[in-house]
């Protein structure tokens, strides 16, 4: 028996936090979730697996579209030509009542809200029970694991479970899963790939395609094969756009030109690896405090643009620096002019969510704006950059440079 376990495909979900990505790369990025899924289907056909289990969040209700549904129908039909079954359950992102009646194809079995057993006999005649359920709403507080039956009179029993150990997503424990005596637990929900247990295997395959820097690293799915009476998973990479965090240490530099000259060879070396496309966040670590202007240019994106231009010019096409962070010793310089207490007291009043709202956000009511600026680190960054600005003004660095 051979089957593929995937989850959290998030078809059609756009990449977030992209910075001025050029058009040719943008096309690749736009199609990335689809391309990765096609790779999975290609692999399934090449391996002639018995079935595919998709444990939730195949797509986003928020980004659900005709094209996504049509794409799925086409891909599932490809599987149908080789009688490859698809077991599909909805997670917290793709739960959708309007989709429940959608006809994905004859080879696709969609789980309902109740824990249900589906049966299949493999090409080699092994009997398999696939047990799963679909989300009917965004949150499930109850331990759905309790509703899973014990392993039945079959060769293999597989549980499909979209959820997390803690929180409002059908909480469960590994011990509870083990107690069911299943042969494999195909989990979904957590985007980071992880093997929770090995006897039996309880696995989060992670998402199929990383969509922002928080989903860095190689992504893919699991090919699960029966070996005598156990099921053995093997990770198969399928990402065509990889997100990576690149950390570089920099010595003391005085000018922007020095900084670029220092970073470029390191990045070129990093790009000299076989990879379709790597979207990176550059994390610069400096032992010394950078001059204000350099820091400001790092933070306002000017340096990133210059680096990307230089990389393009040197023929690097598979590496894109999306953004950059800086770690340097705290420059706890007191702001001149006024006493520190006044600055601190004022900061406490100015850099508050309420004031952020009044100052600008109330005029930009879009939710994504609010949720971004509600983040404490974003607020901290605002204050940090405001301080840089004041210091620059006080020191008249603006005027002196050039």
């Amino acid at each position, binding site marked *: 028996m051979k089957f593929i376990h995937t989850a959290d495909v998030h078809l059609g979900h756009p990449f977030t936090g*992209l910075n001025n990505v050029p058009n040719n790369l943008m096309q690749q990025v736009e199609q990335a979730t689809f391309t990765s899924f096609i790779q999975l289907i290609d692999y399934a056909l090449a391996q002639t697996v018995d079935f595919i289990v998709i444990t939730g969040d195949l797509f986003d209700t928020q980004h659900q579209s*005709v094209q996504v549904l049509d794409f799925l129908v086409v891909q599932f039909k490809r599987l149908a030509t080789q009688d490859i079954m698809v077991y599909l359950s909805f997670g917290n992102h793709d739960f959708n009542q309007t989709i429940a009646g959608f006809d994905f194809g004859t080879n696709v079995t969609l789980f309902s809200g109740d824990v249900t057993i589906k049966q299949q006999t493999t090409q080699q005649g092994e009997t398999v029970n696939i047990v799963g359920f679909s989300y009917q709403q965004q949150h499930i507080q109850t331990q759905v694991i309790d509703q899973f039956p014990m392993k039945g009179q079959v060769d293999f029993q597989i549980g499909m479970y979209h959820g997390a150990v803690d929180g409002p997503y059908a909480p469960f424990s590994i011990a509870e899963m083990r107690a069911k005596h299943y042969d494999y637990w195909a989990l979904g929900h957590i985007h980071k790939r992880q093997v929770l247990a090995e006897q039996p295997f309880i696995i989060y395959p992670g998402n199929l395609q990383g969509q922002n820097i928080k989903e860095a690293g190689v992504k893919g799915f699991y090919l699960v094969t029966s070996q005598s009476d156990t099921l053995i998973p093997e990770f198969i990479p399928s990402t065509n756009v990889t997100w990576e965090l690149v950390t570089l240490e920099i010595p003391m530099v005085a000018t922007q030109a020095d900084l670029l000259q220092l970073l470029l060879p390191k990045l070129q070396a990093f790009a000299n690896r076989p990879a379709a496309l790597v979207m990176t966040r550059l994390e610069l670590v400096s032992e010394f405090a950078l001059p204000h202007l350099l820091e400001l240019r790092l933070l306002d994106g000017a340096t990133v643009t210059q680096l990307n231009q230089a990389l393009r010019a040197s023929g690097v096409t598979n590496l894109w620096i999306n953004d950059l962070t800086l770690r340097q010793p705290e420059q706890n310089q007191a702001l*001149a002019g006024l006493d520190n207490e006044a600055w601190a*007291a004022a900061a406490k009043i100015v*850099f508050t969510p309420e*004031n952020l709202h009044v100052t*600008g956000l109330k005029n930009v009511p*879009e939710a994504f704006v609010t949720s971004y600026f509600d983040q404490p680190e974003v607020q901290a960054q*605002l204050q940090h950059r405001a301080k840089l600005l004041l210091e620059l003004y006080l020191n008249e660095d603006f005027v002196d440079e050039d």
Partner: protein
Amino acid sequence: MKIEAIKIYGFGKWINQEFTLPNAMTVFYGENEAGKSTLMAFINGMLFGFASKKSKFINTYEPKQQAIYGGELILNHHGKKYRLIRRHRTNTELELIDLATNEAYPNPQPILDSILGPITSETFQQIYAISADELAEVRSLTPNELEQRLLKIGAVGATGWLQVADQFEKEAQALFAANSKNGKRPLNGLLAEYRRTADNQMEIQRQLPTYFASLESLQTQHQAIANLKAKLATQQTKLAELNELARLEPLYLQMRKLEQKQAKHEPKINEDTKVRFEQLQFQKTNLIEEITQLEQNLQTNNPGDAQTESLAQHLKEIQPRLGLLFELAANYRAVQQQLAQLKNQYQIIAAQLGPNEPSMQRQRPEDGAATNSSSKWTIGAVAVGIASLLLIPGNIVVKLIGAVVAMVIIWAVGRQMQAPKMTPSQPMPAPTKTQVAQAQLIRVQEQLEVTQKQFADLEQTILAEQRKINALTLSQVEYTSDPAEFSNQLQQINQVINEFTAEQQANALGKADQVYQEQYYKQRQQQLAQIQREMQTVLASINLMDEAEFHLQLVKQNVDTQQNQELMAMQKQFTPQQLERLAGLTTPVAELVTATNMQLTQATVQLEALEQQLQTSQMQHLKVVSNGTINEVEQQMANLQHDVLISLENFMIKQLTAQWINEALKQSSQQRMPQILALATKYFQELTGENFVAIKMESNMIALVTTTEERYTLAELSKGTSEQLYVAFRIAFAQVLADMIEFPIIIDDGFVNFDARRVKRMHRLMLDLSANQQVIYFTSNTVVLTDFTAPQIVAL
């Protein structure tokens, strides 16, 4: 910190100039252009550094004469004296000497910084320097602005910070304006684009219900078409069936008619009866035939008796003479032949005598072989005569005559035949020949005459006999008077006699039968009667009168049977279902066919319409599906979101920085505001000559109260009073700070709106202040000369 002495090496108009400031109150008095402002700038430059830049807008105070740019200050800070030296405007040499030890500090800047504390050039200008320019500025402020300025006086460097804040705010507003509808500002533009894209995305997402509806509609349409096709197929089958029924209908009706007719004619004569009756008829016919035969037999036997008797009589007469008569006939033929021969012989000989001799000679060989010798011919003639006598029955006379005649003929013939035979072997001379022939001719002539006589006698005899025979008038015997036919007649008579004899014998047997035959005849008659009775019985049993009726009935029944067979043949053309269908029909098939045809046409039209609709729907569906922009739009959205955030962040940073400054100013101002307010009230009281007694702060609004408890807002104050209020606040703030930082207050006289009384009050206030803090006052007002003591005044 107190400035005790000023020494200028070279700064503007001042060259190698020294001033001492021994008192807490120093008044630099001089006319305009005396160098008051230059001196003030010198003090500022000495403390915080000279202007590093050169431009036409900045006065760098280059010395008018050749001198070292710079100078010295003697400072007293916390009881310790320092000499501060700066040389050169650029690349300034800074020197700080501890006057107690007279040692210069190797790294003087930090020491100087600690002496100056948090005071910068700007804060110094803003806190401790009350300049004419500033007062001019205050005069130009609106009441609101003045209020803001007053409130923020508590903050160090308030005005400069305010300008910075203002700059940031302007920069921020260049990025984004909340209510601007046009997208000229970058963030407004981005937001507009984002919202357009979001609308577009919404629009695309709105396709989803359309897509589902379209899918469902397609499914429904497929189903409808399938249903309709099934219906069409059913109707087509039905139509085919109906067409078949229509074809069968006339036959069916005909059949039904026939069936009804048949049902009425119950056959009277069943097969048994028929067979029986026909048997009887057959028997009857046979019997009648037999009876007729019998009747005839019986009739012929009786009436022919008389004739038979006379015939028998005649035949009995003829029979005994028959042999004789045959002999006669035979003789007749023999004589006839003899006659013919003789005639022939005669002619031949006669011919030999004529020119025809040679030809006669030539004939000889041909005739030759028949006879060997004349002796043979003689023997033969005798034999034949005897045989004739013996063999031919009849009259012995006739036999004899015949025999004789025969012998003669045969002998003569033999002679005749021998003679020519010898001729070729014995050729004779012609005279001899003719002689012989003539002899012969005579001889033949003689013979011929005898024979002719004989033949005539025979003819007479035969004719007499023939007359007798003809008189018998026998049917089987030819009536003739030709002697040549006599033989035949005799033969015929002989036949009649034989037949008659046979008949006579048979009649003898028949007579014995007759009785039996009559009995048999009667028996048959009885049988016939019996059969006729039986027939009558049969007829009666089937209600028929007679045989004729029976036959009529039979004919009828045959017709029926034929029709039955026809009916059966007809029935074979229908299936049981068809029969059932036809039987169940209430309307004519033709009508049904028409109706079905109409339905079929309708359904076909409907199908065409549905299929066309399906095609359109499929195209629309495809259009919905093939709109490939959604991913692009989604990604565009995500990108725009990011861009908006970055842009908004930049906007926010500028805005927040401005706010931060304002807030920090407010904070530091508010911390000291109560003290400042108290002092300011006191000074304002003094400056207004007790006209105003209180300054009230109510929710960041300043109200002024007179002795008569009248309240004034800032807007209601005169320009002069506003200036007084401002100065009161400035001095009050400097005084409050004096607790923390000891620094001289430098006042540049700009009280142009003050009348003499107010100026006097101001001077008094300065003297009061100098009790706690050094006051340096620059003025061109001569009043100082009376208001201050001589040591306090430095005339420029």
